[in-house]
């Protein structure tokens, strides 16, 4: 059996409600932190746990927390990034709608650690029903005394609000999210300053993903060392993986980091194998932004080692033969799928979602989509492959925020590993048109 932390009780009937959640040990971390620990001690446990940001970047959470500026008399904020929009990713929606109190508990404990008396959960607007679930749960938490003034008589005050987005992938980038929360267009800010120094309304702010904040609950309950004992190497703890595409059992799975990819795909406990008895062709392992890998390279590294579900193992071989864990959006393609056409849907996505602030992304994403549209619709020429390669190269690294890279990497990896598929598509259409 796998180790489960966040989804230990997700199938208990009524776990959405405060009573059932509390019965299963809910809010223990708040009690423990507020009554027996100092904020610094909580930060210390998170550092010890080795927890890394679960939104995609994988930055050590404890370190991010320790960067938070603490000027006298200036409020600090915790903002939860629930703008889950990376194609292939739906774990946060599952967690929030299934066990809303888990996130709320993590928010309170984390806010205590950071000295934040107000926090906001920024949820993508399309998840309005999730917002309703969260708001109901927050009301319950207020009624039970976990939110509001003088929580548990410790003198710690905390208010929590849910903020809806308006429909924009870019708001998953933390500074764009803050702009949006300030009622503006979701244009990423130019860093520095980082949110830890100047964030929401110019105040020091920590922005963390839903799953990251939730993971603080078991870290405080069981201690950072216990959490660090789970997983493999620097990939500590568990990770929620959103599995989708051509598999028998799509869904959200909590895995212990270090699980072999092959087991994840083929075991009945997880994906249940490629659907319809077909062969595996390719996998996008960490959400649309990460490089796509062909079947052989996702199962084994270039050196022939079994590939594991961990930050390090998935990245093994760099971009030449590896990929990234990213947000854990695991998209599987069977032998009948067209990698090029799937890439076109990604390119269309990034074109649609580019905020338009900086020129390489604004113009480059649209250009790449048009070239791919041309190829997919039977008008491609061989020179288009080189053009695409050059365009992604000129976008990558030259933009304000990581959206440019996110748009470039899928294109680069598809050409790197599936160039022949581009050529076949172009040639076969060339024959048809002759």
């Amino acid at each position, binding site marked *: 059996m796998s180790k489960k932390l966040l989804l230990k009780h997700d199938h208990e009937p009524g776990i959405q409600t405060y009573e059932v959640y509390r019965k299963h040990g809910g809010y223990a971390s708040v009690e423990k932190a507020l009554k027996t620990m100092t904020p610094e001690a909580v930060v210390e446990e998170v550092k010890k746990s080795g927890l890394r940001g679960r939104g995609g970047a994988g930055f050590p959470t404890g370190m991010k927390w320790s960067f938070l500026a603490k000027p006298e008399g200036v409020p600090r904020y915790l903002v939860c990034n629930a703008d*889950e929009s990376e*194609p292939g990713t739906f774990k946060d929606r599952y967690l929030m709608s299934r066990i809303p109190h888990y996130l709320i508990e993590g928010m309170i404990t984390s806010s205590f650690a950071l000295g934040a008396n107000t926090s906001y959960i920024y949820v993508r607007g399309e998840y309005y*029903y999730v917002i309703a679930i969260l708001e109901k749960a927050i009301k319950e938490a207020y009624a039970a005394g976990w939110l509001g003034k003088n929580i548990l008589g410790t003198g710690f005050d905390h208010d929590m609000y849910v903020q809806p987005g*308006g429909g924009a992938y870019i708001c998953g980038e933390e500074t764009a999210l803050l702009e949006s929360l*300030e009622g*503006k267009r979701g244009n990423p800010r130019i860093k520095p300053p980082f949110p830890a120094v100047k964030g929401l309304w110019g105040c020091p702010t920590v922005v963390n993903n839903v799953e990251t904040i939730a993971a603080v609950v078991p870290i405080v309950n069981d201690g950072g060392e216990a959490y660090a004992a789970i997983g493999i190497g620097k990939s500590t703890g568990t990770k929620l993986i959103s599995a*989708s595409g051509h598999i028998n059992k799509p869904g959200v799975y909590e895995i212990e980091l270090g699980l072999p990819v092959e087991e994840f795909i083929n075991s009945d406990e997880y994906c249940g194998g490629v659907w319809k008895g077909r062969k595996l062709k390719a996998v996008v392992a960490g959400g649309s932004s990460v490089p796509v890998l062909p079947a052989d390279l996702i199962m084994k590294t270039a050196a022939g080692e079994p590939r594991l579900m961990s930050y390090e193992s998935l990245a093994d071989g760099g971009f030449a033969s590896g990929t990234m864990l990213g947000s854990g959006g695991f998209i599987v393609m069977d032998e009948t799928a067209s990698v090029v056409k799937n890439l076109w849907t990604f390119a*269309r996505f990034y074109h649609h979602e580019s905020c338009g602030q900086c020129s390489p992304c604004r113009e480059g994403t649209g250009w790449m989509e048009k070239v791919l549209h041309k190829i997919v619709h039977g008008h491609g020429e061989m020179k288009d492959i080189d053009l695409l390669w050059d365009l992604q190269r000129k976008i990558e690294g030259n933009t304000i925020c990581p959206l440019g890279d996110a748009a470039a990497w899928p294109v680069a990896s598809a050409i790197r590993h599936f160039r022949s598929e581009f050529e076949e598509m172009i040639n076969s259409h060339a024959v048809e048109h002759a």
Partner: protein
Amino acid sequence: MENKVQFKPETLALAKEIMGRYPEGKQKSALLPLLHLAQAEFNGWLDVPVMDMVAEVIGIQAIEVYEVTSFYSMYNLKPVGNCLLEICRTSSCWLRGAEDIVSHLENKLGIKEGETTPDGMFTIKTVECLGSCGTAPMMQCGAQFHENLDTDKVDSILDKLRADGKRTNYFDAVVVKEY
């Protein structure tokens, strides 16, 4: 002006409550939630007078509202049908047949993507990833995620929406999801 666009009193009260969630002087933060309220109250889209009204309630310039509404994809700046059918077409949904769902809807309703049926009942809109990849293909209508779609399922959803005859919005009753 006599026929000035205004929120219903209960919506205005809710708007004021939302504005109270932010520190003094930061009420612009209420813009996105208030625009959702306005869109639900004024027939599913945001006409210029509605946006101007929201600007006035918050106390900001009208252009600050236009900048925002035209940036985010959920705000409709043109009239839409009673039921806005938003079909995801990105990767996982595409891999599992989103294109077939769109063409089925187009055939069934006799309109193209982006259009509204003559009776004003349905609008088809293709959208990018809605975070429902594990239950693909999917479409959203109001608050509801309709998942694991096939053409039969789409037909019964349309029948039900037509029978209800109501305008859907993102504030529809909470849908408690069971997986």
